[in-house]
């Protein structure tokens, strides 16, 4: 099982577990990143962070340090 941070641009993965905690966890889930959701890694920002993802029909960006806490396959 890998973290979202490791996924290369252009890949689609499914969320297995969310290890983010606190308000951030709530926020991430509210935005649609939940167990079983498909995520497409669109691109990485020019300065290396954050990453742009396609989740449930819309584009969203997330920092790598948070993506690291989302387990996917």
């Amino acid at each position, binding site marked *: 099982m890998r973290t979202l941070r490791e996924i290369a641009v252009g890949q689609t993965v499914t969320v297995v577990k969310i290890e983010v905690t606190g308000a951030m*966890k709530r926020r991430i889930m509210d935005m*649609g990143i939940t*167990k079983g959701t498909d995520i497409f890694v669109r691109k990485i920002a020019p300065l290396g962070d954050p990453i*742009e993802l396609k989740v449930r*029909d*819309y*584009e969203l*960006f997330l*920092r790598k340090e948070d993506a690291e806490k989302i387990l996917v396959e």
Partner: protein
Amino acid sequence: MITVLALVGNPNCGKTTMFNNLTGSDQYVGNWPGVTVAKKGGMLLNHPDCEVVDLPGIYSLSPYTLEEVVTRDFLVYEHPSVIINIVDASNLERNLYLTTQLLELEIPVVLALNMMDVVEANGDEIDIERLSRELKCMVVPIAAINGYGLGELINVALAVAKEKSTNQGLPIFSDTEEISVRGIERLLPDRESTQLKRWLAIKIFERDNKVIEQIKISNNLLERMNALRRRCEVAEDDDAESIVINARYRYITNTLRSCIKKKLKTGELSASDKIDSIVTNRLLAFPIFFIIMWAVYYIAIQTLGSMSVNGMEKIFGTFSDYLTQLMELGGVSLTIQSLVVNGVVGGVGAVLGFVPQITILFVFLSFLEDCGYMSRAAFIMDRAFRQFGLSGKSFIPMLVGTGCSVPGIMATRTIENEKDRRLTIMLTPFIPCSAKMPVFVLFAASLFPDKSWVGPSMYFWGIIMVVVSGIILKRTAPFAGETAPFVMEMPAYHMPGLKTVLKHTWEQVKSFILKAGTIVFAASVLVWFLQSFNTSLDLVSPTESMLANIGRFLAPVFVPQGFGNWQAAFAALTGFLAKEAIVSTFAILAGSGGDAGSKADLVLKLQSMFTPASAYAFMIFTLLAAPCCAAVGAIRSEMGSWKWTFFAVGYQTGVAYILAAIIYQVGSIIQ
């Protein structure tokens, strides 16, 4: 009895456009009591007994952010007649998440499926009837951008409001979950209505602390509810909050499967994606950003801008000559003539001369804001801003602040973390605003005529001071802390309607002109008065006037900066009223009333008062010192306390004072 229609929806769903369409210009803007969250309302057009309340854009009704709490409290306690839930039809899944929560409240919901034009353009199909059946509420397709469906929406909403129907709950829970929730519901005292009990039960299940505090049930009952919850959590190996969120999305995904047919397959690029493949491209993003910014300022300030300033001068010159003739004919006293020509026309005219430049600047900025570029800017800049403790979200207020600090400071509302917000509010005024522009243009033209780097260098200094201040302040107690959670949506680009951009631009230009007509006018009259009379109210020459005395009293303060003379000191003071007033003050001091040679007079006057080093120091001081009173007012209103306001203003002025001094001292040595 007033019917209240509450507009609720995600950010970027077109709520504002819809609100403007529904209320026309009859709107009010204020704050929700006690918090710095904007409250917007207005009367429904053609329906004098109906009020529309625009609630903040939210993704969920959780009790975590200010916007969510404000919206939830309004819906639960103020009990509007109907909720119009505006939903972005091209992005239904996430939008409906909020909808499932709204449908649990006691207020009837009408779903406004917005952006149907985008859905059509994409080639997607939505079975609206089916959707309405599955969600058990009325669904109206609309395209707020061109008014399509608006009439029907209003009719449906008003009809639903009159019926006073309540929502039927959505079966989002699995059997295990339903058992727990219903168990909690049964334990609730009967003083609540059935629907409210259901909503409370779900909230308690989710561990919503605000609700649990508010309903005050016995510890015994609370323990039994906790047990019910625990049973479910163990069975599903997850915490209750996650269980509920998952249940909602699960229901939505299943529902939508039968209601939507999408044309694009996953991985295919939409139009927005294609644009972004260039705009946020790894290599091209920064160059594109700088080119856009450079182009905006070059066109607004250098080329079109300076052409228009010359044009305006001729107009004002002719105008004041005409006025002078009129006054001569009318036998108006020379003093009054001087007031009108030198004071008012000279002062206000100098500022109004910049209206064309400002307009062009605001057209560009409005377009950038309205088309969706701002979130791309936040995306690109986030990493850089993290280095000094902020986030990409702090970039947007600063970008908006290049037009005017006031909306820039208000744009900090999207920053949830209080410390980051305060820091951003404090630093936003460091970025040159359109009012400081005339000062820079004037000084650059007078003392650095062939050095085109001088004007733009102000941006450079502004940015440097933001970065340095950020790094330093973030280490101090009031600002230190964890970096806030950062998750941001990147809405699809859309071509803003010409009307919207023009409306947006006009609002800003109107403020600028109004400011000229009020503050600058008052400042000009005051300056003229102080410059023309001494304390015994005799007419004297400027060097013996009250202004000169006040200036001389202040002047020593500015000796380290090289402009320790009474004119510059006083002009700097007027900068606190409005930055443009600095220009009008110098114009009046130079006696440049209105003849064609006036600009040359002003330039000569400046050249006699400043050396290049002290001029540059003066520009730096103007750039960084406390902003105009309007901006200070915005700071006060967003910070929520005078203590913080004074701190911010004090910091800014202190930095300005020191840096200007350094620049002057170093500059004079180099010369």
